[in-house]
């Protein structure tokens, strides 16, 4: 039986950099040219299977990017195992915003959090304002993962999530198979697993 892990992932970044589009591409392999701005926080899940058949299930919180909802963000990134901080390669201001988010995560989130910096809209390279070198250099300094993606073309999307899955500490006991346990149990199971995933070192088996 393959091992299964469950991790909480949060998406952060300036409004309109493509957070919801990136999730839509990752979860459903779809793209909308016109998406309404997210006013709230959406919860989605997607699994990634690694080469060794390990299954990593991401519980993704896609958050609102608008400044006025910034105070609510900590509620969604608390207990997160990984964060994808997005900027738009056609706007240097969004990279600045991404730096702010990264500083906040480093200060306030779980110290073991895996952070990926992601330059989205790579299909718009003609209007590029942020060079690969600049972003990469910053990521290296801060010890972050880095990649460019295009939610529109799909380029680099599954790669970045797979890379995150590989980097996560896959030492926690696999979540027990709950197939057929009914939805109520499945729901409760999510919570248990969340705790287990948040403290990877701990024995979380409640059998």
């Amino acid at each position, binding site marked *: 039986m393959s091992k299964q892990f469950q991790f909480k992932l949060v998406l952060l970044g300036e409004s309109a950099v493509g957070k919801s589009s990136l999730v839509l591409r990752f979860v459903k392999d779809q793209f909308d040219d016109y998406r309404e701005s997210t*006013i709230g926080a959406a919860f*989605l899940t997607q699994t990634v299977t690694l080469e060794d058949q390990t299954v990593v299930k991401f519980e993704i919180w896609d958050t609102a990017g608008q400044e006025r*909802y910034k105070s609510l963000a900590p509620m969604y990134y608390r207990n997160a195992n990984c964060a994808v901080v997005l900027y738009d390669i056609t706007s240097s201001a969004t990279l600045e915003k991404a730096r702010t988010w990264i500083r906040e995560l480093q200060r306030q989130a779980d110290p073991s959090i895996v952070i990926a910096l992601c330059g989205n809209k790579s299909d718009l390279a003609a209007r590029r304002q942020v060079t690969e070198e600049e972003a990469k250099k910053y990521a290296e300094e801060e010890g972050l993962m880095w990649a460019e993606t295009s939610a529109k073309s799909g380029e680099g999307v599954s790669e970045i999530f797979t890379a995150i899955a590989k980097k996560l500490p896959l030492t926690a006991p696999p979540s027990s198979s709950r197939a057929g346990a009914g939805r109520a149990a499945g729901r409760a199971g999510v919570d248990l697993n969340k705790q287990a995933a948040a403290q990877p070192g701990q024995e979380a088996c409640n059998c």
Partner: protein
Amino acid sequence: MASLESSIRALLRHSDQVKVILEASVVSPAAATPVPSSDSRSQIDEARNKRILAVVSHSDGPNTQEEGSVFILKFKSAGRAFGQSDILRVYPVFGDFSITMAQVKRETLDLRRGSQASPSLLNLTIKQGDIQGLDPLTLCTQQVQTLRDVLAECKRLKELADAPPSSAVAPPLTTFSWLAPYTSKRAPLPALFSIPQDLRVARKALHIRLSTAFAGEAGDDFSDILRIRDDWIRTRVRETCSMGKHALKVRIGTFNVNGNLPSQDLSSWVGGSSSQTPSSGFIAPLKELSPLSISEVAKDPFDDSNAPTKSESTLGKKDPVDTNTDTTEDPDLLVLGFQELDLSTEALLYATSTFKEEAWCTAIFAALGAKAELYEKLASKQLVGLLLVVIVKKALKPCFSDIKSCVAGTGIMGLMGNKGGTSIRMKFTPPTMANALEKLENPGSTVLTFVNAHLAAFDEMVEKRNADFHDLAKRLQFDLGAVAPEGGGAAVPLTCNVFESDVLFWMVNLNYRLDVPDPDVRTILGSEDWAEDRFETLLRYDQLKSAVRANKAFDMFDEGPITHLPTYRFNAGLLKDDLGYDFKRRPAWTDRVLFASNAFAPIQQLSYAGHPQIKQSDHRPVSAEFTVEVDRFDQSAAETAADKLYRQLHRLEDAHEDTNARVNLKIMNTSVDLGKVSYGKTVTKQVGIRNIGRVPCAYRLVPIDVESSVHPDWLKVEPMTALLLPDELVYITLTASIDNDSASRLNIDHTALDCTLILHTVMGKDHFIAVTGEYVPTCFANKLSRLTLLPGPIRSLKSPSELLAEDRSINAPREIMRLVNWMMGPDLNLENVFVSPADPSVVDTIRECLDTGADFPFSPSAKDDLGAVPIAFGETLLRLLDSLPEPLVPVALHARCAEMASRDEAFEMLDAFPAVAVNVWISVTAFLHFVCQSSADPEVKTRKIAGVFTPILLRDAANLVSPVGRRNFLLYFIQS
């Protein structure tokens, strides 16, 4: 046909469509030849064999694949009750589905009825081999053309099902899952009808009963959705099925008889002819009853079989219960609770004698006088000294059924019956109205429960009383008899507690006392000074009310306002005060009547009275009258409605794995601007929420984290949780209103009224609703010390830096002085100031002038015969003083103030006051003195004003200091 189609449509969910309907009859496999309807068989058999075949199709949306199924239905009862049909079988159209038609072979010639014209009979056989346990079915029909339509439609659906998945059309979301609500027995909805929901749950708002959740932590969505669903169904079933109300009049009595046998006339207690309402004498006005009803009832009062007809003929026309709440009418139910019926030790041990019960029942009927003819005992239950008797109007007796009783002792060793409770539970089915348009086939009933309890005695035993209540709540259990589970199996005994009822009354010798010094109680009760507000003052110290406030006991009950003297403890001998209360026991309201009911049976209290003329015990009896508005509904219709509603909610709990596709609410306006929000005024805005998903969906508002509340205290949000069917639009109402607490904070902070509401879609995403508003400051709800630092009117203050330096503060708040000075103006009619109610709009105008510094738009010399403007000024002053975050007299000084024994001492006490408080105190009390002295009756006026101002100037939220002492302190300043 149209009605048949619409009735079948009513059984289906909105997403499902009826394509073809065929009437047929069942063919048993043994008798291959069907029997046509023209045969000699009885009509009943024909109805029994009749079936409806319906082809139903389902689609999740315009771009998803259609699926079909054949439904076989049967009418529940013969006749035209189309709504009452049952879905017998469902054959999904896919895989091994087949439907075949065959000519019926006739072995004999049918010559009975024009065989030439005899329509051809056709057999059809439906098979679905892919589903185990779903046997083939053969039906026969005469509707040849319709049958062809059925076959054509089935063929079409079968082809759709067999077709390879095309890229143009999305595959159905879940193959044939839409059939689940039709084929499975209803999922275990909590007993919607047989046992009412526990009142302790039913009386809590739904959103409070949901799991703990906050931003980013959804809580237990799955159990929440079940709670929301059940509440939704329960509410809507009653909304759709209620056929009006029936007013049931109930009179409750409680009496601790102290071991005595009846020796006095009890008519005032049982019959409503107390001293307060002398008009309704207990001699029954016979003319209120038609002679017909009396003779009929008297002839054979116990013959239940005839009773419904009787009640129809007599009740419909003149019975009070159908003509609504007329307080002079007799109660339908008389429920009396006795305590300490028997104080002997033997009673404690054996408790078998019914001698005392009989004696008291005789006394009750004697007290009813001529009306006794109308009543009879329905039930009684005794536990040692506790007796509960239910007496009913004979004419209504058949309306009561399933009468159960139980007892629990909480006395010595926690078990003995010297303390404890007895309880009676019954179902009430409203009598049929004579003018009812349609007769209910299976009228629904309402459960009434009555508890007579006697809790632990003595002042200091309040915790034991609270514990007794919870003990009784647990141990009073009715045995409802054994019930066989639906699916077969051994019968299990079913019990329920006293709260599992639509209506619940507790009549109690609660023994709760007053936490106020003994001399204070007697002074307040006895002295004329306190005549106006003695009960209100004393009830602030009532242990029962504090227990309710602190949620320690009885917190889900209501109680009417008490306007009678304490009912305990009286002494017939010499050791008593002027009112007859025992010197050794602090007087208290130990005997109370409490009630609770769910939304389907609202209770209105008509009276609550003590009966001091019945003096045979150390307690005085208490009575209370109520009208219970009972729902008139049909049980079968309610069950059908519940089934139908349940189907509408299919897939409600289904969707969390695929959030975006299905559960989808749209917030019509994600930001709300309240505009200017000022003290004492409410601003209301609405937020539309539409379900744009394909499945029913619920939302709830959640706080940002565990410690926070969902919304700030100045904002109300309603409804906090709701369920929306696909495409349904609901509005959330946001109401901003600033009370003293929020104003005292906002006046200092000067913050904008900004907040974000988090609307959590159950099993879906969180939406944010940004609320903004501008707070308009007021002089109300500021500390005195801050008011004296204002350089001018509070509205002109731009920033806190403009406040005066401490050493340059003014003597007294100019707002208070402006009010007092205006009222001291010449020729004002101050007679009704502080006594009569004020016009709220005038009060608002005055406050606005104080806040802005504008001149009052009223001339003090204007002729104002009724004194309406001065009354409004008086009210504004009262409210301004009451809005101070700290009372004018600092709480720390109350105890010392209360001890002052002379006017000189009281004036010396002022040295301890903060300077600004002294100035205000002197000005206000001097003005009050002036008002009292200029009154036509200074003594009465002084009394009234002391009653109004003591709780404000010496506000004592914790009720720690003697109310008499505080009042006396004020009187030193305003009396002459």
